């Protein structure tokens, strides 16, 4: 009796492990192992070519890289980029979602248009906008937006230009997300407020925003993490330039790995990757704590 139950339990357990196995193998080989190997790589000074010997330098490399001006400026760029994209993206997405959240004939068409940028990829958006920014064939210079140096080569504008592309490209996604959140707010809440004589402003700040706060919270977290991992648009539009002004962390990892500014340096790339991980982790934790509290307050 007990032995048959044990056997069944054992069989169930092995079935469970078997079902987890494919995913675990992928995770082990392509997530956890490379994650941990970063730490090891960071201890070695890597030769530019894989057929030459590498040299143990211990924590020196960590110290040199994480303390270098180029790392600090890359970090600042990344943070600035997040501040440019996340609030603007969510603000615009919310504006579109609120505008489209009414019962009108043909509103479906507008909703489809507002979500249309989901069909574009980062690469598509980057290619389109980089052409529009181009001083020779682009439209923006014709509209009188023609700074010297041109937008993409302009140290003060390049990052903002990449941010604009990012906001546009993610607009569809943000719109869909926030629209779904809006539609989940019960109609009678608004009706009750209207009876109480609340104007549209009051209704927005007292009902919409608080009721939407879990969705907004989610959008902020996801948006920030995405901002810190932005790569394609930088690669296509600026390649980290002009003079490294758009060299966000992810791009600097790529640069070291790919040998964009000299022979590849996997050791340096690994140290930068660890920094990116630490920042993403810290960011998530901070946002979880701060925003979660505020969300609860609002309720």
């Amino acid at each position, binding site marked *: 009796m007990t032995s048959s139950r044990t056997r069944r339990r054992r069989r169930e357990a092995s079935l469970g492990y078997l079902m987890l196995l494919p995913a675990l193998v992928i995770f082990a080989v392509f997530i956890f192992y490379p994650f941990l*190997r970063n730490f090891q790589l960071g201890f070695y000074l890597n030769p530019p070519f894989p057929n030459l010997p590498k040299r143990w330098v211990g924590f020196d490399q960590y110290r040199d890289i994480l303390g270098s001006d180029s790392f600090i400026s890359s970090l600042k760029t990344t943070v600035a980029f997040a501040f440019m994209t996340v609030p603007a993206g969510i603000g615009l997405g919310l504006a579109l979602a609120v505008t489209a959240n009414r019962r009108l004939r043909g509103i479906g068409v*507008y909703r489809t248009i507002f979500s249309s940028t989901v069909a574009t990829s980062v690469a598509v958006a980057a290619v389109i906008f980089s052409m529009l920014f181009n001083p020779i064939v682009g439209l923006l210079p014709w509209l009188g937006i023609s700074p010297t140096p041109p937008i993409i080569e302009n140290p003060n504008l390049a990052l903002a230009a990449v941010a604009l592309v990012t906001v546009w490209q993610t607009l569809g996604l943000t719109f869909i997300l926030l629209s779904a959140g809006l539609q989940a707010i019960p109609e009678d809440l608004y009706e009750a407020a209207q009876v109480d004589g609340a104007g549209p402003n009051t209704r927005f700040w007292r009902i919409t925003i608080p009721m939407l706060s879990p969705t907004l919270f989610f959008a902020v977290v996801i948006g920030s993490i995405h901002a810190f991992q932005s790569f394609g648009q930088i690669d296509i539009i600026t390649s980290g330039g002009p003079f490294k002004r758009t060299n966000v962390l992810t791009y600097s990892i790529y640069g070291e790995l790919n040998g964009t500014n000299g022979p590849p340096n996997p050791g340096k790339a690994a140290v930068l990757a660890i920094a990116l991980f630490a920042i993403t982790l810290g960011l998530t934790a901070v946002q979880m704590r701060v925003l979660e509290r505020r969300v609860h307050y609002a309720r």
Partner: protein
Amino acid sequence: MRADSKSGRRLRTFGSYAILTVLAFIVLFPIYITVVNSLLRPVDIASRPPVFFPLHPKWSSYVDAWNGGHMSKYLVNSFIVTIAITVGQVVTAILAGYAFAFLEFPFKRSLFVVFLATLMVPFEVTVVTNLDTVRTLGWFNTYQGLAVPFLATGFGAFLVRQAFLQVPRDLSDAAALDGYGHWRFMTRVAVPIARPAVAALTVFGFLGAWNQFLWPLLATKDDKLRTVQIGLKTLRQTSLNDVNVTFAGAVIAVIPIAILLLAFQKHLVRGLTAGAVKG
């Protein structure tokens, strides 16, 4: 009084349409001008004032992008890799989700935490070694090199597990009584009930795989394996003298995914909101 409020409402409706139309115009404009520019000669694209409607559309740019620009090949590659990744993600997610939802085994909670921990490691953090791994396996510049690292996600397993947990206990008990094995129960009962979640995961996984940029850039070396996103970058780097071809390439890259999204809009919304609802 009544007439007043009626005309007021009408005015407000008109205003709503006006605002909506202006916003729609702004959102769509980059796409519109891309289509226009793809049909112009480069010299006309550079002309001032710009041409906003192609009176003499030049379709040859699409032929150039399709053949000379290798967009046809890039599209095929993207579809192969994306479908492989999507199928892989769905299958591994169903298996893992099932184990977490219906089976009992030691270290189950810890293993679930391991699955969630994968969400904390951005892919960018792992590229250094993954590139080495793929090279060592001989997978550099191959379809498996592009697809295998993404065949499982913690998010997918989580999503499907949550859906499986909604399956009424009575059903699984009844299935056990009827002598259903786990395999039959999973395919006949659990998965059909969790279909919305699976569909959402499919659309979400597809979109994510299709839009990948960093990895295909690193892990391929030639046109034979390049995906659409990387192909576009290559097209973009051609001379300004071929700028219309670049625009045509962008349009070609958008079309298939636009069609798919129009067809599966609902599932995309569900996939996106799945995370938000759980908080």
